């Protein structure tokens, strides 16, 4: 027994070894993402089903409302949603909501989706990127307004400055009547989406958000104002699992799982050492 204990006895500078192990396990979980068993929540399943069940030919407004600081939590959900939308032939309007960095996040996610930047189809026909409009809820309200809010609120131009007349996808997209689903990645709970899209026009809403805002989002899901939701990196990994394409969320969550198991392992080893020490001190009693 004692050689086993000696084998797992951690040298004097115990903390340094623990810090090294924590960092090594985290790096490992990122460099080779491993598929650990994962329990899919009801909210993630509802988010996935709502997109899959949407008939072809519909128009989806995909909003990016998170910045680089939340990349670890929501980058996975954004890329997984793009991968899922590739399998549909609906019209995709991508819009940087309430975040100057939204545009940067869109470029990064389009580049990292399966099949590369133009995997969603022909730009201007199957999908388009709309410009960033400041003003949060006032901007969303202006976009939804009849007769032609989707054009006028965006200055009749797309993200790159191309005139909307040259973008066939925008020919039959004018106001709230032409939006069949809103998917918002990030966005501090779901309050403004429900207020500007759900309540006034009944547009179905899906939201992916960070853990801090989950309590508010869960409330909207429970009362039906939001159809489905993704909770931080864990929900993103569940979505990646449903789509079958492991990505950064899978490795982040794998890192979290391995890390928690490692810490529990530390506690067990620490107690074995402690009990063995006490056993020796009491002369083998």
């Amino acid at each position: 027994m004692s050689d086993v204990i000696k084998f797992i006895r951690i040298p004097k500078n115990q903390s340094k070894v623990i810090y090294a192990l924590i960092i090594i396990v985290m790096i490992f979980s990122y460099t080779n993402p491993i598929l650990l068993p994962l329990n899919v929540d009801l909210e993630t399943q509802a988010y996935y089903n709502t997109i899959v069940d949407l008939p072809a030919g519909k128009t989806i407004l995909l909003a990016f409302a998170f910045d680089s600081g939340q990349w670890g939590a929501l980058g996975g959900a954004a890329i997984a949603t793009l991968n899922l939308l590739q399998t549909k032939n609906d019209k995709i309007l991508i819009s940087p909501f309430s975040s100057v960095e939204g545009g940067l996040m869109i470029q990064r996610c389009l580049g990292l989706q399966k099949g590369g930047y133009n995997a969603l189809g022909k730009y201007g026909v199957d999908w388009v990127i709309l410009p960033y409009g400041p003003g949060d809820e006032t901007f969303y309200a202006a976009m939804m307004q009849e007769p032609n809010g989707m054009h006028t609120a965006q200055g009749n131009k797309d993200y790159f400055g191309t005139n909307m007349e040259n973008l066939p996808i925008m020919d039959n997209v004018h106001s709230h009547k032409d939006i069949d689903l809103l998917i918002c990645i990030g966005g501090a709970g779901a309050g403004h989406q429900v207020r500007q899209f759900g309540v006034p026009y009944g547009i179905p809403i899906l939201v992916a958000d960070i853990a801090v805002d989950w309590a508010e989002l869960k409330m909207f899901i429970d009362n039906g104002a939001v159809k489905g939701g993704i909770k931080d990196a864990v929900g993103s990994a569940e979505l990646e699992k449903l789509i079958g394409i492991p990505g950064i969320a899978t490795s982040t969550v794998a890192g979290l799982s391995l890390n928690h198991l490692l810490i529990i392992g530390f506690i067990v080893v620490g107690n074995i050492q402690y009990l063995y020490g006490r056993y020796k001190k009491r002369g083998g009693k």
Partner: protein
Amino acid sequence: MSFVRSFIPKIVLSAIIVITILSYFLGIVPLSNGVSIVNQYVIIMIAFSLPLGVINLVGRNIKNIQNKRQDWLLDIAMLVSLTVMTVLGIFFGVTNTIYLWLYNNVNIPVGAMVMALTGLYIASAAYRSFRVRNLEGSLLLVSAIIIMLWNAPIGAALFPPILPIGNWFNNYPLTTGNRVIFIGFALGVISLCVRYIFFRENITGEST
């Protein structure tokens, strides 16, 4: 003279506490407005008092440099970065490109990493401190492991019953403990106010 030096400040402290609390309970609106105005002025006081801190810090650094103490060269680096950032911020404004570059590429990433150090140190704390030394230590350890398994994404997949168990621990033991500490917290600040109001305790802790 000690009347002005130490007794009047105690009266100021006592009066402010009584006025602020009574303005809430008696609903005296002008008094409440006065309290909130003065509270906004505290921010101005902090700004004016900043030289007290900066001179304390810079003075210590200059002494290190003069005495050529260990790493005095790095103390010069601190004074340079402090001067550069302050001059840029005040004379060129916070939209200055160099100021923004330092803000975005030093202040934010290093600050985030300082917070991330908690991820390392909490693991070492768990290893070194959770011991089944006695019943209390064991309760501490078991409940921590239950919640960690409940939080870890793999937990539910490895051991499905962890979900209901974790939910129960997150609902009852957590809220019960919160309530005990919260009540003690409220009683603590109430008795502290009473001690200040009746001059039984002084913020500058004279040992008289």
